[in-house]
């Protein structure tokens, strides 16, 4: 770890478990149409220096979870229950001033669209220097030097001159690099990257992903990497959590989840994704139906209306009982472990080619 002296937001209890620990998190929004349960009973842990990939479709609650960690939700319409512990410090009940000391310092975020996340009114250098000044108390001059150094590190050519440019003078890939520089300027312990490459072209995406991986080795931050692209997650993450309709449905190391997936939704995702080496004679196998509305989510297992393996579970447990996700390697499904294994090996694996 490269963490240096940093003002702690709160005293760290001696028995602090994982670096980041989310326990039974519920987030709901009040809307005109009713209450949207965006996150519904989510728990996960993250160790220092590891990368957790969260994969899911739009509306699965992956972004909301991470906005809640940083306290970026609108408290007027949002109800948050459960616990988010960062080094033992509870974040859901933390005061705004405490969160302010964390944001951009211990926890930093990279957003999907760098053009809307950067201010058009200030130079790129100033936007990178600002959090550094605020959190370390550095002088203006030192902070500017640090901004130039960071821009150089993330691969902006002529960082000295480009630091005084405005975001509109940067190309899409360079803006995302500037965002990464801004996120890493205070050497954060946790970096949340919310679809950081979705808006980029594929060759630029490859550059940025490799850059993030290399920088993580240097800075030693833990990363939460949110994406809908299984290919990107396979490339980036140590562990994967698959989310569906506000909850985690499968969790494990990257190799476990991709090579021996256990949840029907993960099978569906793998089967529906065209790959460069997939069999062309067979059509893609999409998941039938559409993701559920979170205003009125399905009873029991959230995935049951789209699941083709429902009839293999005794009784109608899928409709009545919500399957739980055990800690560590697990999947939230009523199929027995043996059934999951057999179905994957005999029915899913052959189709993946």
């Amino acid at each position, binding site marked *: 770890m490269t963490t240096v002296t940093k003002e702690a937001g709160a005293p760290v209890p001696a028995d602090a478990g994982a670096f980041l620990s989310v326990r039974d998190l519920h987030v709901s929004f009040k809307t005109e149409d009713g209450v949207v349960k965006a996150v519904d009973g989510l728990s996960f842990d993250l160790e220092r220096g590891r990368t957790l990939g969260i994969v899911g479709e739009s509306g699965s609650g992956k972004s909301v979870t991470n906005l809640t960690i940083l306290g970026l939700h609108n408290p007027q319409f949002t109800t948050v229950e459960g616990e988010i512990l960062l080094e033992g410090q509870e974040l859901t009940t933390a005061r705004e001033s405490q969160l302010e000391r964390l944001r951009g310092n211990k926890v930093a975020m990279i957003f999907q669209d760098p053009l809307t996340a950067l201010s058009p009114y200030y130079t790129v250098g100033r936007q990178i220097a600002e959090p550094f000044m605020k959190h370390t108390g550095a002088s203006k001059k030192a902070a500017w030097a640090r901004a130039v150094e960071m821009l150089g590190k993330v691969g902006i050519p002529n960082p000295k001159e480009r630091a005084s440019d405005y975001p509109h003078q940067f190309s899409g890939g360079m803006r995302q690099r500037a965002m990464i520089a801004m996120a890493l300027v205070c050497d954060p312990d946790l970096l949340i990257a919310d679809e950081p490459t979705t808006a980029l072209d594929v060759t630029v995406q*490859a550059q940025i992903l490799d850059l993030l991986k290399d920088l993580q080795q240097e800075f030693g931050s833990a990363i939460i990497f949110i994406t*809908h*692209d299984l290919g990107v997650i396979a*490339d980036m993450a140590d562990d994967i959590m698959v989310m569906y309709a506000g909850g985690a449905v499968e969790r494990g190391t990257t190799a476990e989840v991709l090579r021996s997936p256990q949840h029907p939704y993960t099978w569906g995702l793998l089967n*529906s994704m065209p790959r*460069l*080496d997939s069999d062309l004679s067979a059509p893609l196998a999409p998941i039938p139906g559409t993701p559920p509305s979170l205003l009125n989510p399905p009873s029991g297992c959230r995935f049951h209306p789209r699941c083709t393996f429902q009839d293999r579970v005794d009784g109608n447990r899928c409709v009545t009982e919500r399957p739980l996700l055990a800690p560590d390697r697990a999947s939230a499904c009523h199929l027995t472990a043996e059934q999951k294994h057999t179905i994957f090996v005999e029915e899913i694996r052959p189709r993946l080619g």
Partner: protein
Amino acid sequence: MTEDLVLPAPRDTDVPAGEPLLEVSGLTKHFPVKGGFPIRRTIGAVQAVDGIDLTVHVGESFGLVGESGCGKSTTGRLITRLLEPTAGKISYRGQDITHAGRKDLAPIRSEIQMIFQDPYSSLNPRQTVGKIISGPMEINGINPEGGREKRVRELLEIVGLNPEHYNRFPHEFSGGQRQRIGVARALALEPKLIVADEPVSALDVSIQAQVVNLLQEVQRELGIAFLFIAHDLAVVRHFSHRVAVMYLGKIIEVGDRASIYARPRHPYTHALLSAVPEVNLSEAEDAGPRERIRLAGDVPSPIAPPSGCRFRTRCWKAQDKCATEEPPLVQLSGNHEGHLTACHFPEEPSTEAREEDIVLDPALAALEEDVVDEG
């Protein structure tokens, strides 16, 4: 869902399969850039598409891939004549339609249809689904047997929607369902060519596969030719018989799917393929690891594209010749029939891992050197 397609084959199929349906040569579109004070005048041009040649055969699906700003969408819009070409020639079934007027185009417009990227902005929110899909028939004065409504209900069934949805409005549907409505509208006139501009990139993965399958069925069962424009190489590979790769307004490589994906020759095609993030599903990989190429920077501005070969500023094989001489799009020795490449110094036809990765990005190269040093 769409097991039994009941649509009749396109009208008067006098052009047999395999014959060229659409031929484009030297197609160019320059958008003027205005500026200056006090009199605004043209001070330059965005060379969006700059002299491309392509042929789409009857019943064929032709993929056009490239990164944003390479001119693939402009090409689609030129072919459907939504934009007026600056130069070049478009001929459809032997008839020159490059600058054809409204009257001459009318019969052809019904044969070339378009599916748009954004299923939200491409459907009129104030019209019912029935009205949207029957619109093209109304405009062209087509009265199918049993009436337009019956035909619309048939079309809804073909694209996997409930015919009961006839009187609903677009906002009642999800993104994937809206895209199906767009497909039904494109099919309403029994077209021979559909230009699909990024038809699935706005959709979630699980829904994307549904729409790709639908388009594939439509293409196979009805023998409709497709110009499939997309940035996702895996989707294009799945859908297209032949593929053209575009870079900065030019086609740099074109050929059969297998040839382009397994035996690419142009350095840019190599870089594109190596940049696709892939899920490695089995531990013992049969094909061996893929090559790793990381380009530096972004695509240059199409207002002032590099001289000679347009890729040379980001290419690791570029030499003086590349700056002075534009490489012609030709069949190189070792290429399969019909596989054309525009490069002076082509790469080996293989995508397997090289002895040394090609990392042109200076920041990446520096960071990786540090790691090697420390290790």
